């Protein structure tokens, strides 16, 4: 039952969501393979092997350098057909979602998305998908092949198996129509520190900060913890902080080890983006804020008092 994992990368690094899916797949099947598509991606094959891939297929071509979905659908569709993969897994991202859905249409394979777990029931692959704003979990399956899945970012952690993979170069050619969309300007990380979806620590701010200048308090604490800064939709809409930092239903879904929510009420829009964090610490002056229902440690208090002190404590700890 061969399985293929799309291994996404950015700036010469494989992405954690992809490696997490790969490690999970390696625990379910003995012969999990990975595919790398891009320009100068061959050196990443070793990382995919270490995360559990037995074989890494590499489509390495300068023409595939831009992270656009449609050329990747061409490469993957051919590989899946040639090798007879019956399962193709993705760690969700802007790019991976478009690739997965394009591939599903191309190969008429069922796609289940937003999965938070994968398991086998006998030979059947079963995915778990939260629904109705995560108030219920739905077990989903497939009735056609290839079975295609998008796993929610941050739900599966990479595990180094120390394995090595055999590497096979594959055809990197793409159809003309797939090349019609072109990248005029590619995104580069705009903020310092780790990308929010990859960050192990996130300090996030909401309306309770009072005014945009107070995001400095959040930034200082994030810096002291070596983490990234997150924001709620309300403050992004108000122009206090860039959309790229938005956590929630319309922003990023994150699952850092530590999430510190500052002046965030915990509206469902925000909750679905961060509730999978390992530990949630909330600081809010409103005792009735919903966030106090799903945090691990809640502090009812004035964040303008607490944040500078906490930042100082973290700095001295790091310095010690």
């Amino acid at each position, binding site marked *: 039952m061969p399985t293929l994992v799309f291994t996404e990368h950015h700036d010469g690094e494989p992405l954690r969501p992809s490696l997490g899916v790969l490690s999970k797949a390696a625990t379910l099947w003995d012969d999990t393979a990975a595919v790398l598509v891009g320009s100068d991606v061959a050196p990443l094959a070793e990382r995919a092997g270490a995360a559990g891939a037995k074989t890494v297929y590499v489509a390495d071509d300068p023409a595939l350098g831009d992270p656009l979905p449609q050329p990747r659908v061409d490469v993957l569709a051919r590989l899946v057909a040639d090798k007879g993969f019956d399962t193709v897994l993705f760690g969700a991202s*802007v790019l991976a*979602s478009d690739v997965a*859905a394009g591939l599903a249409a191309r190969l008429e394979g069922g*796609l289940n998305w937003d999965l938070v777990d994968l398991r086998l029931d006998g030979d059947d692959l079963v995915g778990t998908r939260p629904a109705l704003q995560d108030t219920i979990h739905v*077990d989903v399956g497939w009735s*056609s092949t290839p079975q295609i899945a998008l796993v929610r970012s941050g739900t599966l952690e990479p595990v180094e198996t120390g394995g090595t993979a055999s590497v096979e170069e594959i055809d990197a050619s793409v159809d003309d129509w797939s090349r*019609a969309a072109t990248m005029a300007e590619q995104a580069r990380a705009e903020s310092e520190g780790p990308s929010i979806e990859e960050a192990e620590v996130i300090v996030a701010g909401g309306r309770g900060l009072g005014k945009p200048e107070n995001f400095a308090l959040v930034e200082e604490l994030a810096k002291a913890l070596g983490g990234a800064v997150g924001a709620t939709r309300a403050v992004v809409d108000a122009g206090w902080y860039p959309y*790229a930092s938005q956590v929630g239903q319309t922003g990023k879904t994150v699952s850092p080890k530590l999430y510190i929510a500052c002046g965030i009420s915990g509206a469902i829009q925000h909750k679905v983006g961060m509730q999978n964090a390992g530990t949630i610490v909330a600081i809010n002056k409103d005792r009735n804020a919903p966030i106090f229902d799903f945090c*691990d440690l809640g*502090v009812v208090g004035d964040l303008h008092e607490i944040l500078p002190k906490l930042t100082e404590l973290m700095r001295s700890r790091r310095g010690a």
Partner: protein
Amino acid sequence: MKVAVCVKEVPESSAPRRIDPTTLRLDRSGEGTLNPWDLSALEEGLRLVEAGGGEVVAVSMGPERAAASLRKALAMGADRAVLVADDAAAGADLVATSRVLAKALEREGADLVLFGQQGSDSDGAVLWAAVADRLRLPLISQAATLEIADGKATVRRQTEYGYDVIQAPLPCVVAVSDAINEPRYPSLKGIMGAKKKPQETIALGELGVPADEAGEAGSGTVVRELKQPPPRGETLVIEDDGSAAQRIADYLAEQKLV
């Protein structure tokens, strides 16, 4: 320019939502409304046509009663609406929905196909890529801005790393983010006028889609069972008495998070 905007009826957001334990599908028996995310796509289509001339057609798949929700698209300013309604189309997943929608869009032959960011019911945010693949049209998703000039779409779009600028020749498929605009409210005149606008309901047969390739029969995924999500652990809430920063620091150290 002809713009086709794909829209969907979803359960009214104020109504309690539930999954029918027998069918394992979302209970859609209550009030329906246009998917709020699709309003941004409609607004964008209307602005483009208002500026450059042409036609906006709302295209949807759903039960016959969804025609009432589509009237809102007409009230906002769309010129006409096409609804694919067929009992055999019910229970469709991504592959089945995209198959039907692609056929309906082929029939329209629009210069630009627009999608909203997601469905408020299923949180699905992938349909456009499946439809674009079936139509063999270039695709740009997550558009925060969209400009059409010289037969080309230019999109600024947000990713995990910042903003890409992507271009594609028309015809193409663009999925917009809700950050792209502020959708208008239908005017009274728009609401009155909507009743006179052409609204078409078509069956699968008219699109040449066999019943077994649509709906649940044509789907590639199944729902197996419903479960309760695992509960979170204990929550400790304290009032700040001046020592909260220290207590947070101690807690983080205890949890080995710093």
